């Protein structure tokens, strides 16, 4: 079952690259986080600490973050759809190529089973590809969170579990980044009227 969920996460990440509406993107992210949480709880076994960590992970990433992002898009309505950098098919193919390269090139890390390893690295790289391929600010933020999801997947699949201090630290970092990025997104939206990062180029001298 874990294997299916892991593949699901990757598929959801690839889906985020093609969708047009921000709401759908956030929903996909929430689903991905849900899958991650279920995997974490499953792998926790009987250990109570890991259980605690897993449930917190689930809560924050599947519930709190998407809520925050939903509030953000409510406050920053887009008048027109943002012009895309490239057509959805191209984006999908590009992301697929990146994921494939990652799977082929990554040497065995020896942390967990091979399938999870490959998928987590692919998730990180697909997350960076989302940042490159999408223009609206929100999607860039989503790409960052997807990359972080990949790292969390790797962390939870380490045999013996990861220290909860590390997990808390990572969660805190993520919360901070998302808050700051949301504040900036709001500011850019109020200044430029849209979340299109291409317009930010004009700020350069």
């Amino acid at each position, binding site marked *: 079952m874990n294997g299916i969920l892991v593949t699901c996460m990757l598929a959801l990440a690839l889906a985020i690259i093609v969708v047009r509406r921000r709401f759908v993107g956030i929903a996909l992210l929430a689903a991905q986080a849900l899958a991650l949480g279920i995997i974490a709880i499953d792998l926790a076994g009987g250990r109570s600490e890991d259980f605690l960590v897993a449930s917190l992970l689930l809560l924050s990433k599947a519930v709190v973050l998407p809520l925050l992002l939903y509030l953000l898009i409510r406050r920053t309505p887009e008048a027109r759809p943002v012009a895309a950098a490239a057509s959805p098919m191209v984006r999908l193919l590009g992301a697929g190529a990146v994921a494939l390269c990652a799977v082929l*090139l990554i*040497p065995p890390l020896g942390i967990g089973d091979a399938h999870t390893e490959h998928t987590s690295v692919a998730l990180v*790289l697909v997350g960076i590809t989302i*940042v*490159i391929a999408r223009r609206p600010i929100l999607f860039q933020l989503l790409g960052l969170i997807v990359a972080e999801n990949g790292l969390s997947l790797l962390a939870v699949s380490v045999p013996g579990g990861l220290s909860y201090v590390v997990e808390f630290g990572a969660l805190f970092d993520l919360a901070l980044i998302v808050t700051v990025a949301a504040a900036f997104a709001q500011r850019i939206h109020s200044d430029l009227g849209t979340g299109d990062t291409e317009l930010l*180029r004009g700020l350069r001298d």
Partner: protein
Amino acid sequence: MPLLAWAALAGVATLACGSILAATDRLRSGLMVQAAAMALLGVAGVAVLAGGQTIGAPFHSTVGLAFGLDPLSGLFLALLSFTAIPTLLFARDYLPGRPHAPAVGALTGVFLLSLAGVLAARDVVSFLVFWELMTLVPAAAILLAGRDREARSAVYAYIAITHLGGAGVWIALLALAHHGGIGDPAAMASAGTGAQTLVAVAALIGFGTKAGFIPLHSWLPRAHPVAPAHLSALMSGMMLKVALYGLIRVEFDWLGTTPRWLGLALLAVGLCSCLGGVLWALVQRDLKRLLAYSSIENVGIVALALGASLLFSGAGDRTWADIAFAAALLQITNHAVFKTLLFLGAGALDRATGSMDLDHLGGLLRRMPWTGGAFLVGGMAIAGLPPLNGFASEWLVLQSLVHVVIREPLGIALAGALALGGLAATAALALLCFAQMLGLTLLGVPRTQRCAQACDPPVGMRAAMAALALMCVALGLAPGLLLPTLAGLAPGAGAPVAALGAGLHVPGSGSYPTLGLALAIAALTGVLASARGKRRAAPSASWACGQPFVPALRWSSESFTKPLRLVLESILRPRRTIEVTHAGGMVQSVSYEGEVHSLLDRALYEPTVRTGLRAAALARRTQSGNVRTYAAYLLGLVMALLVLAQTGILG
């Protein structure tokens, strides 16, 4: 001997006290305390030099602070003290009233401390720390004294060039420490030619930049003129010498077997510095910049002597290697003394007339007799005229070069002959340059109103300059007394050279009887001058083809060097614009503007700076300001690393 060590330590502590005192608004007493401290350090230096012993810790290559003195450092420390004490006495009357005087006074003390620290350092860390301090303190003092655009650009060029070139010092010393060669020439000899070449080249570039060899000299004429007078005196007098001390230590003491090419390289660098320095000194209008360029010339003469010494020791000729080394040390000593005197004199002239422009001075010998007299002695000494000290050391260097030609095989002898011709031409050029400088500043009729009302500075400044002038005369009259000590300082010195009295007697030359010559010339001049007779008519105007002699007919700094500028046009490349205004068939006015740019600035520095800026502009194109581009760079990098890891290149 612990007594000397205590004296040195006491000197250092007193110096620190003096700096603090100067900073807390008791400027004059602070400077006096600093002078007393320098006297203590000078006593320690002279005692170590005369006794020939070593005090403190020996040199070592491991990390750990250690200080000590040996006869070579003792000589430089004594020299530092002999030039710093008159400078501090001068600064006592010169500094108060200038902007930020207490801070500049304190920084002077720190500067002296860093100079003494470099000379006493016995390990890599302390040497490099004091070296950097020695570089940075004058920059701070220059910016404190004046913040205008010229000072800021001068300090920028100074720090940039000394650090870029000074990287050589770091490389040389760290390579030496790595091989365990500090203080142990055998270690470098066993380290192989590759390491030796690296250390030799790096030391030549690094110490050469700080000493002012051409082509790494560009900071000197920018930094020295904008510093306060007493600090310029210390920078030109002692900072360059400390750089030469470092060069001597690395290339002579620690390098093991000296490579043959190093002596020739020093000869070449010395020749270029001599000729270039004095040529560009000739075309300067600013007095301090002229003195700065002439420092480059004198450092070139030292390099010639050091190169000759290396060539002799490479050929196994011990006597002449020692004599050439003594010639270099004597030139270092003499230059420190008369350059300090000249810069202090320039400071006094600036204070009295408010201008350093040669075309705005004149007639100051009769209005400021003490300053003018000391300045005249300094100018004659640096022009290399008997019986003063400049001629004594130049004579020794010329003798060394003549004997290079006589004793060495063909290739090296021809190089020596070229160097000999170049040095003779340099001596004549220096004569031209300083005859012009002295004539424009001291003789004739004053060119501005303020000049006509100038008067002598306070007693302290006069006493300082008179003391240095007396030192010039004493060193010129009795250099032979110093010669055995200096020749004994050469590394691997052979049989000691005997002192045959005050004059210079070296084998293979008619001797230079300093006392006899000085006495003869002075006595004969006195007799003939008194035989002039009393029958004189009243003074009358000088001959100007029958027309009245008006100020417009007077000669400026450019006129005197015009024949030379015309002859050497292809090297100096002067630029001039002349505008003649006609009205009604008659010339109404003529406007003339002439300029000589430093050739190396245009040929070497400007292209380098332009290329650097163009490369930076190219690199800037990768900075798009767009997050997506940066993320793309990141992805590309990760992919490339994965590929490399996969193909096993990264292992």
